[in-house]
């Protein structure tokens, strides 16, 4: 459905995308994960033909991009990172007007609007102004708007950033419904739980390159030890130096917390029995651990 080969893009001196290749098949949900500034959004914009790559080839739904990007966009849906609903129109008018941009006739759009309103859960808000909607409602409307042309592929750039947990769960449920209908989804996110819930495959991206790519559970098995022991409290530094370094397969001290990645955690846990002042959390490794291992713990601003 989407093929990207050796994609490169420079803005001025800075090469934001440095040779990215991946493929997404029909009906798949593919997640591009990465910290801010990793090059996710630029990669997505290249796929949509909104930014011209310096080199590399992109094929979207059998059409070469950017050469035939406009035709390709007629068959796909886009949910941008920042809401750009039209505040001069009501909910219903937003959907109708967007259908116009796709060259759909008035009657085609009119037929589709009730379904879209229902999908967004906004049937009773059809005549509301955009500014009267909550953040979650705006997001749902933006997703519904992207479905106005009944696309087979949907691109979402950080679909749940800025939403509260309730709103995020509703968005996830709506997206799963689209996957159930056999549509293809390509999304970027920096929420690991989002990727783990939705994506069939994820790619971790940083500094313009893909660091790893696999189904989420495979990525965890492949890249990281299965058990994580988190230890925090007074004196964690001393404990870390004497025990963690020796007994954990891999250990990191970040602030007041020690992260110990182990295969056999028993020996390490035994040393904690003598240290009641330290608090311990034992859990299974998750995608976030993989992400932090591959992209580091440094802040990205």
């Amino acid at each position, binding site marked *: 459905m989407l093929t990207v080969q050796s994609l490169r893009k420079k803005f001025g001196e800075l090469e934001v995308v440095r040779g990215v290749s991946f493929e997404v098949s029909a009906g798949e949900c593919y997640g591009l994960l990465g910290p801010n500034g990793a090059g996710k959004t630029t990669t997505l914009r290249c796929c949509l033909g909104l930014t011209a790559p310096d080199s590399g080839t992109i094929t979207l739904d059998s059409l070469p991009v950017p050469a035939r990007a*406009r035709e390709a*966009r007629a068959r796909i849906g886009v949910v941008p990172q920042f809401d*750009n609903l*039209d*505040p*001069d*129109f009501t909910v219903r*008018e937003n959907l109708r007007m967007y259908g*116009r941009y*796709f060259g759909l006739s008035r009657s085609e759009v009119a037929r589709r609007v009730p379904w879209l309103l229902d999908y967004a859960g906004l049937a009773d808000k059809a005549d509301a102004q955009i500014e009267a909607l909550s953040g979650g409602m705006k997001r749902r409307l933006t997703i519904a708007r992207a479905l106005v042309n009944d696309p087979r592929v949907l691109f979402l750039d950080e679909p749940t950033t800025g939403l509260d947990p309730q709103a995020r769960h509703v968005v996830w449920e709506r997206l799963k419904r689209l996957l159930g209908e056999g549509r293809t989804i390509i999304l970027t996110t920096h929420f690991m739980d989002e990727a783990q819930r939705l994506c069939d495959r994820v790619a971790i991206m940083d500094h313009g390159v893909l660091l790893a790519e696999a189904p989420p559970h495979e990525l965890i098995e492949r890249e990281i030890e299965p058990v994580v022991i988190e230890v925090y409290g007074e004196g964690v530094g001393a404990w870390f130096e004497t025990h963690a370094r020796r007994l954990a397969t891999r250990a990191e001290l970040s602030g007041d917390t020690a992260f110990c990645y182990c295969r056999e955690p028993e020996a390490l846990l035994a040393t904690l029995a003598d240290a009641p002042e330290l608090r311990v959390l034992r859990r299974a490794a998750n995608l976030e651990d993989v992400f932090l291992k591959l992209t580091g713990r440094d802040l990205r601003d």
Partner: protein
Amino acid sequence: MTDQLRFRHVVYRNYRVWRKLLAASLVGNLLDPLFWLVGLGFGLGSLLPSVGGMRYLEFLGSGMICYGVMYSTSFEGLWSAFTRLKQQRTWEGILHAPMTVTDIVVGEWVWAALKGVLSGVAILTVMAALGLVRSPMALWALPVMLLTGLAFAGIALVITALARSYDHFVYYFTLFITPMMLISGVFFPTAQLPRAVQLVAQVLPLSHATQLARGLVLGRPIDNAFAHVAALALIAVVGVVLARALTARRLR
């Protein structure tokens, strides 16, 4: 319909928004020139015997048509277009549909010009109501208004593509629009001005527009009519081409 006419969706979008504010827009478009014409035309005009062989009210009215077109078009192409570009991200949303930067810029260009025409028509209507329009030739002022609108819309969209904030538009108005309004023969004949200023005034778009509109509305001969039309057309085309390139660079 054909691909080349996709810009009409952008015109239609802006029209739909405008229609919501129809009453306020028409009141402003009609009352504003009426006050100017009555106030300046009758007030100041009563002190003046005649201006270049015309009653001052006639002279002023025919100039105000172009001033009205310029003002409405510029406002739409600057503040309103910039709001859709930056504040509301409306253009970004449209680009996610199968539309191009060219479709958007051409749509905005045509729309801003049409808003200018609307203002011009309102002033022409007020003039007709005051008995100042005698020749049916006045209808030829309509294409002149459209051309004037396209010229000013082109310039405005270039400025918008370059602007970082609304503050930039104040410079454009203070340094370009206001002096042009004063020396382009809208309120008094350019012959009153120093020679150097006259030379500058000659090449300004508002001068070309005013000379064309005045001749057509009042049924008087126009010198160099073709040159005026060509100058406005050139400004319009260069403006929209440049605006398209600058907007594409900004949105890439």
